[in-house]
């Protein structure tokens, strides 16, 4: 029996960028906030000396424990039986205080203006016919100009180090810190890109180029390019993450209580409003009810969607009727993400063992407003990137295609090319489709007997065509870079159920129309005015860049919404019926 606790102003589920930002902003505004994290408490202490490739990269030390916590099930077709994603090699979602925002790489782009009004703009430019049947292409209910100040705020919180994209306009201020060092590999990429007529620049980075104090008074250190970055917590507190920024900001107000090892199982809902959450203390097994005036779900895409479905809030999406909104529009950059061309250089050696998660260069010429889709067999486009993560020896053994993957020849060639190979890849925009969605699995359960999320996802011609285009462009760049051998990635025919990275989105998407969206442009639920659902779960589609800046911006927007709601009450945005047909 759940033990009922005293009511607080706000409960926030999750402590990544989404939950962390909302917690910090509301605690600063004087509200009593309780934050829930089902994982462990972590501090920068935990990551000092964390330079162990086997533990962090191979054994996924910072990833969700699929045994103690939960997994998902996965299938391609609606009439298939879904199977659980069983191992951490196939599922790499972050865990513990700060969530995925701690092990992240730190490449932090804004989406383009076209992304927020994608349906209107594509229709305006190419006509309604350009949009394939079954694609859920919709405007976000907010424009870039409206979101700009929140982007700006997030970038200052994180202390981003970058330079302006020569093709993008509309920044109200410069990046807070200068861009990262241009290494010989990046220089080679940029020169090749320029020769081909593109406009390369340094990737905006959350690995900071100088010691920096953010607007909340939190200090982030200078990146040392130590190479243990993506998949690791930072050894030096030099990567912007919630543990060095928004979590201490929230705690220093005295208004924020963090409850770790606390697994939220339900949102309590009276049919109109959320009244609190039910959670279990994983250390004692005791179940509690924590009442609150406002409930914020700031967990991962899967978590946010699952909690709403388990709590029976909002209408679940039904692919047969194409009605309902919870679980609708699942999408993300994973299967056709980061395909490209690998070059092998006989006469060049690169310092690949040095690097940082977001150290890299890129150009935007092939996506958003900058690409003409008139004659392409896809819409939108993608970014082209080179990165210098700092390669560990276990997980980086590229050999030219045709080389055996073990034995004498493998050893010889993998050693030869260990510091002689570069990769250029493509980050595609990804859209939602009527047949890609999430619901509760009828068979597989978490350790408490609750159904896990079931993902139904298949690739479309849009995905494959765009990926092929991207791979081809990467190959052209690699040729210009002068590689002696170039291998291109094959574009998969079908999604293989390996959930790489953390770029999953949708399920509780934002918009103007309650028929096709679950939350408004403050991420306030249409079906429960005191319930805000924050994170990439709100994305109607994936822009052609990495998602974190947009997650951060939307979290600042949502925090403002919660505060507004606590003061004024009611719906913060008027619903519009767009009569959008899929």
């Amino acid at each position, binding site marked *: 029996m759940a033990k009922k606790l005293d009511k607080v102003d706000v409960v926030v589920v999750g402590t990544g960028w989404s939950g962390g930002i909302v917690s910090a902003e509301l605690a600063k505004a004087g509200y009593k906030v309780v934050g829930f994290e089902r994982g462990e408490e972590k501090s920068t202490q935990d990551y000092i000396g964390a330079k162990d490739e086997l533990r962090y990269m191979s054994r996924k030390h910072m990833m969700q424990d699929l045994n103690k916590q939960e997994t998902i099930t996965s299938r391609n077709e609606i009439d298939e039986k879904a199977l659980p994603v069983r191992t951490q090699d196939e599922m790499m979602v972050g865990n513990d205080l700060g969530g995925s925002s701690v092990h992240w790489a730190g490449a932090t782009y804004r989406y383009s203006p076209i992304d927020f009004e994608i349906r209107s703009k594509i229709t305006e430019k190419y006509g309604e016919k350009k949009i394939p049947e079954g694609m859920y292409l919709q405007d976000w209910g907010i424009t870039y100009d409206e979101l700009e100040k929140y982007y700006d705020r997030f970038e200052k919180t994180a202390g981003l180090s970058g330079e302006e994209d020569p093709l993008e306009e509309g920044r109200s201020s410069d990046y807070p810190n200068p861009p990262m060092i241009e290494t010989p590999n990046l220089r080679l990429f940029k020169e090749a890109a320029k020769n081909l007529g593109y406009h390369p620049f340094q990737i905006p980075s959350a690995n900071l180029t100088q010691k920096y104090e953010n607007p909340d008074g939190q200090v982030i250190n200078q990146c040392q390019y130590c190479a243990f970055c993506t998949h690791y917590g930072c050894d030096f507190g030099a990567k912007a993450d919630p543990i060095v920024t928004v979590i201490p900001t929230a705690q220093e107000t005295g208004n924020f209580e963090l409850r770790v090892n606390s697994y939220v199982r339900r949102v309590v809902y009276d049919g109109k409003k959320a009244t609190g959450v039910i959670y279990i203390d994983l250390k004692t097994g005791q179940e509690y009810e924590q009442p609150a005036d406002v409930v914020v779900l700031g967990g991962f895409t899967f978590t946010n969607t699952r909690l709403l479905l388990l709590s029976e809030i909002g209408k679940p999406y039904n692919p047969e009727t194409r009605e309902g909104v919870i679980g609708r529009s699942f999408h993300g950059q994973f299967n056709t993400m980061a395909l490209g061309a690998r070059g092998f250089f006989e006469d060049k050696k690169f310092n690949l063992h040095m690097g940082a998660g977001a150290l890299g260069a890129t150009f935007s010429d092939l996506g958003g407003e900058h690409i003409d889709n008139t004659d392409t067999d896809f819409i939108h486009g993608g970014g082209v990137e080179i990165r210098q993560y700092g390669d560990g020896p276990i997980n980086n053994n590229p050999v030219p295609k045709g080389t055996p993957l073990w034995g004498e020849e493998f050893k010889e060639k993998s*050693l030869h090319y260990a510091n002689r190979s570069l990769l250029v890849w493509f980050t595609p925009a990804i859209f939602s489709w009527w047949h890609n969605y999430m619901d509760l699995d009828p068979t597989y359960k978490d350790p408490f007997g609750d159904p896990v999320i079931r993902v139904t996802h298949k690739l479309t011609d849009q995905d494959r065509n765009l990926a092929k285009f991207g791979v081809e462009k990467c190959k052209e760049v690699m040729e210009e870079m002068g590689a002696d051998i170039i291998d291109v990635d094959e574009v998969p025919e079908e999604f293989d159920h390996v959930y790489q990275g953390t770029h999953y989105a949708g399920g509780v998407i934002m918009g103007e129309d309650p028929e096709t969206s679950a939350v408004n442009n403050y991420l306030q639920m249409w079906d429960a005015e005191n319930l805000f659902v924050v994170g990439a779960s709100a994305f109607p589609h994936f822009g052609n860049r990495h998602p974190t800046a947009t997650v951060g911006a939307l979290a600042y927007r949502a925090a403002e919404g919660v505060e507004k709601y606590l003061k004024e009450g009611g719906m913060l945005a008027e619903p519009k019926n767009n009569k959008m047909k899929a």
Partner: protein
Amino acid sequence: MTENNSKQGSDKTKQDQNQSKENTDLGRRNFIKNTGLVAGGVIGGSLFGGLLAGNFKSEPATKQTDIKDDDIKEARIFFSRHEDFNVLKAAVERIYPEDDNGPGAIELGVPHFIDRQLAGEFGMNGKDYMQGPFREVDSDDRYQSRLNRGEIMIEGLRKMNAISKKKFDNNFDQAENEQQIEILQSFENGDVDLRGTSSVLFFNLLRQMTIEGAYCDPVYGGNRDMKGWVMREYPGPRAAYMNEIDSEEFVTHDPISLKDYQP
């Protein structure tokens, strides 16, 4: 590999043979000492006699067991049968062989690395979702076996040995290199049926753990003396590259390990 190279390789093997003989003798003496058995007293006894024979008398003079091996300092905590461990040793050496670049998997400590990994969380799939129902799948990329990694490894190694015995009339570790490679390839290609798992899944696991053992931090028992890192000029965990990351030249450092790095 060129002809010249393989010639050098075989010369080196000869040297190692002598060294290995010494190691084996030492190992035998230690065994007798440690178990408190007097050699003369057990030769006639069936159980211990068989054990001794199995462990020592049939030590083959084939290449893979001649490779310098620190067995003397190690003990097994996962593999209960020496026979399984011998198959493992031979297999990982074929996957990552000794060559002119440097040591192979055995000298790097890979077999003991794998033994320890399988005895722990990874081998027991401690952080994976292992609840049923289990269903068969076509894909070898999806782990849908009800066996954990340790069980898969035993299943696969024993099958490799059984195939070797049947096909080549020899234990896997005593078969010729080419024969071992042939068997490994048949597993890699999915040509072998395993009980409860697929040969591809087993092979991929074996390959993955071999590479891990060659290049992990030495604290895990692999990458002995950081010799795996030396071969690929990898410097190990270091604090900062800020002052050299823009170098046009390739920068080398003598490797250090977590033992030297962690505060």
